[in-house]
């Protein structure tokens, strides 16, 4: 009963967080007459539930859906390999899922060269997953070149985020 209450309150908390409107200044109401009140009993801190197993949410949160690359490179970094290993483990646990890997580039390159570079990045991620046992038939790849930046700014931080291979679950996940 208590745990049900906790999940209910955490649910309320989550839904409250999900759509927090900007606080609008309210006119201050006249101060009520002071009354004595006992504080409500403590509920303990709210902590998030783990994502539903087999869900896209779980994939994104436990494996990570995006690996980053160095400038003009399609080589998998140490961090990228770690993320792809977790992706492979998740994909091997959830064998009905299919994925689309899109390769992306920062804006500092010509359009056609970046289409080729994005294809190379998507392929590097794909090959790593295949080597870790994910069936090739479950993986599609696409290159967006520099056409789909996730960060629209033009600075080092944006460029580093925009040089990526993103793994999207296209079917088979628990919703």
């Amino acid at each position, binding site marked *: 009963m208590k745990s049900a209450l906790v999940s209910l309150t955490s649910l309320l908390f989550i839904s409250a967080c999900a759509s927090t409107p900007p606080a609008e200044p309210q006119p201050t109401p006249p101060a009520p007459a002071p009354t004595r009140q006992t504080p409500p009993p403590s509920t303990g801190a709210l902590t998030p539930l783990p994502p539903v197993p087999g869900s896209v949410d779980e994939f994104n949160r436990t494996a990570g859906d995006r690996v980053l690359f160095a400038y003009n490179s399609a080589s998998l970094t140490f961090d990228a390999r770690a993320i792809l290993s977790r992706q492979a483990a998740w994909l091997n646990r959830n064998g009905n899922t299919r994925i689309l890997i899109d390769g992306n580039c920062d804006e500092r390159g010509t359009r056609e060269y970046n289409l080729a570079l994005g*294809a190379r990045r998507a392929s590097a991620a794909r090959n790593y997953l295949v080597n870790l046992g994910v069936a090739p038939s479950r993986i599609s790849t696409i290159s967006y070149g520099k056409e789909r*930046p996730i960060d629209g700014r033009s*600075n080092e931080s944006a460029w580093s985020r925009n040089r990526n291979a993103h793994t999207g679950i296209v079917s088979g996940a628990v919703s």
Partner: protein
Amino acid sequence: MKMEITMRLLLALFIMGFAAPAWATLEIDISKGHLDPMPIAIPDFVGASDPEREIGVQIAELVRANLERSGLFRPLDTASFIEQQTNINVQPRFADWRVIRADALLSGRLVMESENRMRIEFRLWDVLAETQLVGLQLATTPENWRRIGNKISDVIYQKLTGETGYFDTRIVFIAESGPKTDRVKRLAIMDQDGANPTFLTSGKYTVLTPRFSPTAQQITYMSYASRTPSVFLFNIETGRQEVLGDFPGMTFAPRFSPDGTKVIMSLVQGGNSDIWVMDLRTRQRQRLTSSPAIDTSPSYSPDGSRIVFNSDRGGTPQLYIMNADGSGTHRISFGKGRYSAPVWSPRGDLIAFTKSLNSKFHIGVMRPEGDVERILTTAYLDEGPTWSPNGRVLMFTREPRPGAGPHIWSIDLTGTNLRQMPTTGDASDPAWSPLIE
């Protein structure tokens, strides 16, 4: 006195590298900005009625704007004109035009022959030699007045420079809108001066890198409308779009062969891009490169015998040339920086390219032998040059500084006369049509 105009133009053309042998091109940079555009007087075209005069004014304005934009001519202020011509079939009072220092004079007349047909007559005069250089007439529908103005501009340009003009042409490009992270890209077309902009696709799917066929009636481009992003053909007359070929992977970077019978492009297989060519009649395809490197942005020489392309087989993106059958590949770019997006000049003597060096992008040209490199532009992002059909002007995409939207710019082969094309919104990936028949 005719000689004077001729000499002045010969000198101009020599400075701009046209009459000059290729080895002399280094002199262009030294002389750039010293060119004296030719003063030309273009009165409003005369007419017997208000509707005729109205179109006559529009045509004269269009011709003046075209010639001014070329950088080779300086149309004189119409307010300075002394003689007010009413009849173009008599000699002008040349002394009146010499006083205002006009070297050339264009006199035009417009006659409405019926509601749907007008006749345009024009004479080009050499003011100093007191002779007629051109006397022509043509007839068309009144709505067609812009093309008439462009054709007249081409006649003047050709007569006075000896070079074919480029005014009766169109630009296909990508019209862009929306935030960078959710960009809408539509295929669009406009006249070379930015007039008559028209969307050709809805924007539902991203489209990139359009290029004209030699007949200017077809466009090849890349689109995400198909399951696998692919090279498409677009017929301008019918509006019909089709995927080109059934390739086992993403195809991109398309360009027509100079005779229009083939499209050359990149195909991705196993993450690797190689260059293929497809015959549009037989639909047969042939693989031209098979390196594990990126091979893309192929562009034919005007005689169709060779192909310049972009490859990182040497470690960084550089320019290479191969024979049309894929043999004889050799690198031509050896300067500092990264080279990409090469385009062979329609004259055959130069290759335009994009170069990135020290966090800047440049449009430049070099000879097919790889020497005599000249950098024409510098910005945060300049890319994707396209040649005017006479090979003397380049258009390209420019993002002037980080975060500023792209627009289409043009520059002379001399490195002078840098201008932004008037487009209603952001625009990129221009491709210049051949002269319209």
